[in-house]
């Protein structure tokens, strides 16, 4: 160990730690998956990462990359020990190329900071997770993150043009070019997006950016039941309207939002859908009118918010997932079964099933999420001191995952597989498809040193 520490010090100077306290801090993310690393390294450039991985390869040391540690599936938890590479210190925006509608960034750039840097140019990086203020671009790419505006703008995968990746043996490759499209060979860029650090470590990314819309409007439609709300969403999409965001917030979520911000202008009762439309003043007015009209037939109330009123609702919505303790301080939100997704028309069925599962197990749940793309976040919260409640929670999460798969959906829409959902992956994609994934993993990381134990790979 001393010898490895010395070698790491030679590579990264004092940006290496083996202290028990520091290792504890890097043992996990926001999920319940933990693993104690032997070392933590905070590299500053691709060359250091390359040297570190060469060392890991030579000594068969597991290497787990980590951004801001905001993941929800244990993706950056070093479950086999070894070293954690904290990439958040590589946080430079290397180039803003407005003419080519691209940016080149290091993986540790925080998404919101990128958007702040792009705002003066009238551009933005559209993927918009709730953790935008703290998550890093590297983490977003590794988990194909998306968020509230993916219904219109898609996921991170749609914006990555080129990656600089350090492979397990220390080789450094580029997966693309500075072009908006390319049909040259296998799409390695897309392969690495969502690969959760199991195939290589991203050290640079070329990203496509988009012009900021002129205006945004928010339509709040309040329904008696979540199922009816789900039907309204289907109706709106069937009418050819694509909102820039389409979020469901159930009544529990509304209570939590009110606790976060008592002045928030949202209904007190019911389940609400937030439809956001963006574009020009006239196009958003027309879309808002159409959505309001459709909702009015089944909704209890419909209203339109703009400006500050809209911003405060979005700000509260972003953090609601972590805010549930405000409802009951004795309970903690546990991220399990929290990211299922189904085809849009199955949303009402999924909501109903989740309701049945949580009622039967008598476990409180808050339901919210990106209903417009079929992604429902179920927030289960328990007294973490109670083993009985932990058992119920695990059972509920398992049933929710299985319900989503039965409806033709996915166990994870945007948070990733990590270890938390690893056991479902072969079942969801099929054993043959999973064996192809295993072959790819074996080809790129034959020694299995990169983020071992994740996505069902040893």
């Amino acid at each position, binding site marked *: 160990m001393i010898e490895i520490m010395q070698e790491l010090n030679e590579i990264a100077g004092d940006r290496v*730690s083996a*202290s*028990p*306290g*520091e290792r*504890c*801090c*890097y*043992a*996990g*993310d*926001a999920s319940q998956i933990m693993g104690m690393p032997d070392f*933590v390294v*905070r590299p500053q450039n691709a060359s250091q990462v390359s040297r570190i991985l060469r060392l890991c390869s030579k000594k068969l040391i597991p290497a787990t990359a980590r951004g*801001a*540690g*905001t993941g929800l599936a244990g993706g950056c938890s070093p479950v086999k020990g070894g070293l954690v590479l*904290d990439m*958040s*210190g590589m946080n430079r925006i290397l180039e803003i190329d407005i003419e080519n509608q691209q940016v080149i960034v290091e993986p540790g750039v*925080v998404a*919101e900071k990128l958007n702040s840097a792009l705002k003066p140019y009238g551009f933005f990086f559209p993927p918009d997770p709730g*953790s935008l*203020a*703290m*998550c890093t671009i590297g983490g977003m790419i590794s988990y194909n993150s998306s968020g509230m505006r993916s219904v219109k703008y898609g996921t991170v995968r749609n914006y990555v043009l080129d990656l600089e990746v350090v492979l397990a043996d220390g080789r450094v490759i580029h997966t693309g070019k500075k072009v908006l499209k390319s049909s040259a060979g296998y799409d390695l860029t897309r392969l690495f997006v969502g690969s959760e650090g199991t195939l290589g470590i991203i050290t640079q990314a070329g990203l496509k950016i988009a012009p900021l819309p002129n205006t945004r409007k928010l339509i709040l439609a309040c329904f008696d039941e979540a199922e009816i709300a789900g039907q309204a969403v289907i109706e709106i999409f069937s009418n050819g309207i694509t909102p820039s965001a389409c979020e469901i917030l159930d009544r529990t979520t509304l209570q939590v939002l009110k606790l*976060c911000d008592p002045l928030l202008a949202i209904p007190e009762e019911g389940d609400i859908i937030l439809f956001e439309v963006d574009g020009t003043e006239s196009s958003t007015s027309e879309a808002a009118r159409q959505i309001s009209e459709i909702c009015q037939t089944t909704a209890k109330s419909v209203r339109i918010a703009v400006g500050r009123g809209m911003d405060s609702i979005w700000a509260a919505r972003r*953090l*609601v*997932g*972590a*805010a*549930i*303790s*405000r409802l009951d*301080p*004795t309970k*903690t*939100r546990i*991220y399990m079964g929290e990211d299922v997704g189904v085809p849009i028309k199955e949303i009402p069925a999924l909501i109903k099933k989740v309701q049945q599962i949580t009622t039967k197990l008598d476990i409180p749940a808050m339901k919210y999420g990106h209903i417009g793309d079929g992604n429902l976040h179920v927030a289960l919260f328990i007294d*973490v*001191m109670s083993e009985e409640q932990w058992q119920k929670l695990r059972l509920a999460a398992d049933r929710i995952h299985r319900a989503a798969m039965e409806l033709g959906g996915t166990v994870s829409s945007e948070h990733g597989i990590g270890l938390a959902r690893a056991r479902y992956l072969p079942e969801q994609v099929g054993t043959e498809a999973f064996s192809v994934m295993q072959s790819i993993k074996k080809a790129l990381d034959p020694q299995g040193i990169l983020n071992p134990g994740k996505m069902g790979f040893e």
Partner: protein
Amino acid sequence: MNLDLKAINQCVRCGSCRTFCPAFEESGWESANTRGRIIIMKGLTCGLSPDSQVLDSLNSCTTCGICTENCPAGVNPPELIENARRQLVSQGKMTIQQADLSRNIFTSGNTFGDGRDRLSWLKDRSLLAKKADYVYFVGCMNSYRYTDTAANTFGLLRRFGATMLPAEQCCGSPLLRTGFDARRFVDENCRQIAKTGAKTIITGCAGCYTTLKKSYPQDFQVESVPEFLAERISEIDLKQLDLTVTYHDPCHLGRHNQIYEQPRQVIEAICRLKEMKTNRKDARCCGGGGGVRAGYRDLSLQMAKKRLKDVPQDVDYIVTSCPLCIRNLRDAGAGDKVIDLVDLVAMAMR
């Protein structure tokens, strides 16, 4: 260790605090942000040994409270951290700097270990009325380092019937922030306050203010100088100054006690106010609080330098109402441009 596990478990490790923690911004290590500190506290309940790195993690928090302000789960990390420090100190686990600071206070009654009379700046001790409605609580910093400010403040408050304690002791804030028992000082100050018959204590130090308000018996009302002056601004004969100043919100006046508007009212009665880039509940910490200036001077000054970047262009002064903030911001390069609110008022008095 006897830490509040329920409160610790309220943290969902979402990492929101990474965005705001000023110590983390300088360090970059996870153990230097609030989430890391909470993980370490949980570790301590499960057998993690409180080695020097653990002590550095817990003691490098300025208790500025910006994480509390922005925590979606409603956790109050400064409270947890102060409790953990207390537990560790009770087991004899502390840094050299913590030990030095507490020794200074326990031996001399002030943070500097200064043996001089606390009121040596007061030219005429007969001005100390034995009985009064108000007591001006000077604090260690103004008693020994910013004696002109102390004199200006007393000069102002005396007009309204304020006296001072004849043998004021440290309020206990540095002890309480860094994990020590301050009862001895609380009791002694309370005894002297009771003797004056005063029902209101006024202080110009944000650290003293929060301590007097939250850690002393509720036998008297506590007001900060900005609160006291804002209420009486029309009674003071002030001239307008052709100055533009900015205001730095001390964490222990602002986020900890929501005193945001009163200092601004006073400033605006005198001159132009131009806000800092981050202000009120979002104001950056000066980096000096929570024992960080004493324990981690470089880190503390780095944070102060960051805070100075928030200062708008072309202001004549950076006004604040906490001598510790003044000290740290001055040392970080702002020099005499940083002044106390009272000194601004003194400039404007006819």
